[in-house]
């Protein structure tokens, strides 16, 4: 195989070529690939084993992403740049609706007990972002969602406020106070 050597080390070339050897060996034309169409929100209650672990991983990552969104939203609010906030909201809204919502356990499927804490954390983080964006009504909707989902789980420790921990009941009280002050 001929390897162009524009000053590169042959070792690096070898490593890289091996890394994508299979793809290079049979050039993919883009027309024969498989793409899963099913949303991962289906049949939550039946998640188990590898699939459950994968879901948990996705939810944890989504939570970290929400923390990043919260940090960015807070910064935008402090700078009071309304154009920036508008563009950011244009990003956050579909992100919540299509991504976060798809990760949350669905009521009709039966909420998954192992995902309850992760569900709660996602909802609280989402609410925290909305608080920074001064979305009073939507914060209210998330509060009602939390109150409905976690009846009897008020002593569960959740990650709220962002970066801290408190009981779900306490976190909900804090969130209501924040919403009141928006």
């Amino acid at each position, binding site marked *: 195989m001929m390897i162009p050597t524009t000053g590169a080390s042959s070792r690096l070339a070898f490593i890289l*070529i091996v890394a*994508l050897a299979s793809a290079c060996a049979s050039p993919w034309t883009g027309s024969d690939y498989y793409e899963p169409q099913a949303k991962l929100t289906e049949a939550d209650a039946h998640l188990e084993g590898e699939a459950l672990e994968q879901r948990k991983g996705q939810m944890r990552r989504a939570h970290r992403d929400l923390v990043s969104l919260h940090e960015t939203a807070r910064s935008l609010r402090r*700078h009071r740049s309304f154009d920036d906030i508008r563009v950011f909201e244009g990003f956050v809204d579909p*992100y919540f609706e299509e991504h976060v919502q798809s990760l949350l356990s669905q009521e009709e499927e039966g909420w998954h007990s192992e995902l309850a804490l992760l569900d709660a954390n996602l909802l609280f983080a989402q609410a925290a972002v909305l608080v920074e964006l001064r979305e009073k009504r939507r914060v209210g909707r998330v509060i009602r969602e939390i109150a409905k989902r976690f009846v009897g789980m008020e002593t569960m420790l959740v990650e709220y406020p962002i970066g801290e921990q408190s009981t779900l009941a306490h976190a909900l009280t804090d969130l209501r106070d924040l919403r009141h002050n928006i």
Partner: protein
Amino acid sequence: MKHRILSSFVLCAGLLLAASANASTGDADDAWAGYLDYAYIYSSASPSELGVRLNQYAREAGVTLDAYMAEHLETGSRASELEKRRRAIGNFLQYLATGKSARLEQAWLAIRKLENRLDRHENRYWHRYIDAHRALDTGDSLEFTARTLRLWNDVIVDMETSYETYQTLSLNDASSSGFAAALPYLYENVARLVLIRSQRMGARSSLDPLAAVVRFLADDRLGAYPDVIDPKASSREYLDAIVARLNGPESDGGSLSFTLALFEAGRYHDLARAKLASDGFSSETLDAVRMAVGAYQSALSRARTLQAQTAVYSRVLRQLGEIHAAKQRLGVDPEVEIPFSIARAIKIYAALDRDLADDWEKHGYHDSGRESYVEAMHGLWEEIQETSFNVAAYYHDRGVREKKGRESLSDAVSTYSRYLTFFNRYAKSGAEEGVPDSAFFAAHDAARGIADAILQYDGGNPSTKQLETATRQYVEALEIFPFESGVWSSAALALERQGRDSDYLGATQGIADRVSESRALDNWIRAEKESAGHFDALRRAVVDDLAVMYLGFSSAKELGELEQGVETLRERRAGLENDIADLRGRLALLGRPASEPLAESTEPAEAAEADAELPDVADGANDSELPAKADADSELPGVAASGPAPNPADDAEEIARIASRIDELDTARARLDEQIEARARALPLFKHVIQRDGLAEDLSAQRTHPVHSLVRRMYVEGNADKETR
């Protein structure tokens, strides 16, 4: 760093593609098809590198990209989805390599034909990616931000789920995984688009919402696949640096626009610094300096918080200082307009100081905390002080070099004075939290700098009034930092030039008291901290008048002479001893026991007394004032063993004269003993002090030198003592 990353990235991409092309059947169609299908791997290269790469691919394929598209890709309704996409990518690559907007529009037109097939990740990626570039190309930063966020939402978020699934199934290296396997490259492309290409294409504002994407990328995404992209080829390192700035004390409350602008300015600053070091003030260097200054101005124009202004000024002052240091070093004075001033930096410090107690959070330090607020104050202070000294040193040097340098010397004095005014305003007690430890030694340096410059006034002949000012400044400098012998001698010189050298001990008495009574210094010495031995020697020296005189009127060069002087005194003492013994021998011959007490002398050894009052540190200068052996002999009649028979009356007279002379020599010997003892005590102290004089230079160069904290404590102590008194 950006160039290194891009180069290695392009290189890897080239190798991968070459491997792909060579693995294929080898004709032009297959070669370019491979290059275009895998364009997501190398499309983030810089225009010049991409141009070189496309030319190389053309040589390998035997046909240019444009010719390939014309000859091998169908147009119109007959074009397949694949051909449409390849045409879009081909035009897009040409746009990236040449910067021609028309090629971008051709790419956009081609990819829009796939809008009915955006369900495919690959189509959607190129559609959104090209669209984001269209906004960049038209200079619409806000729209660029919106479209890049859309790219993330529509493509990346969706593909992450697929990629994880493939990873779980261990399918991501297989051809069946399709475009989903490209995700690590897409992370790289988004990162480069936001961090590098946006800046290259002049997107300076409205990037702040993209901070979210930057944080996403930093969270186990970019660089997280070393088996796919070699970490050396990843922009991870650059991303980490940006995120650290975004969240750190040099941020603008988390603004990505500001962070990128300041980073860019820092890059230009590094280039200018390197040019200055290698080429001096060449025209290229001046251009680089202007670029850096312009970039700092651009960053400052984006700064919305005091935090950001502090960050810009802390950096730009350094550049100001570097330029003045180079002017001084090279002895040239090119016109470099820098629209940033020390005075403005002092105003920013004042604003930080005003809100240090309560309202610090409102200035942008919410995330990094109060500690970083205080650190930023320290950093700004230290840049103010160092730039002041670089500027002042430049003016001082110019003032000395020029025939009519009075104006430059005045500028040096003004610059030092401004620092002292700043110091006296914000370091009243010395304990202020926003003042760094190094500020106190700097105040010493400034006071000394004022005095040094004044001594150069009028060709080195300042007026008496100016000399008085210089003396006061030297004493002030010594009050803050008494451990540098050069300042003691400068103070003595200034007094000497006023004819007031006898005031020296009095003028420095307060400093001696301060040193000898300092509890902070005592604790430091007891704990055997840095330079404790030196400080102990100086503490013992300042309570010894002779050592203080040495400090004022002697230099290291004269040390050998001073030590020789002690030897000379010892020799002369031995000579006196011999003379006395001879005289006693004569007395014995005249019949008076040598041990019998002599009559008390009525003639004091005036010369010897005068000599003892103020030991002359210039070795041997007082020799003539002491009774000399030859003189003593000449005053006495010769006493020969075989002379005429003695007359009793003459004998009595002779005995009295010899006795008187012995008494006189005894007194002189006692004085010499005192001098020898004093010099033997003071000289080692002086020697010790001057041998450690490099400490001042160390303190000037090292902001974190441990002795700065001692200098500060002594200052605080001195202030408290003044108030008590």
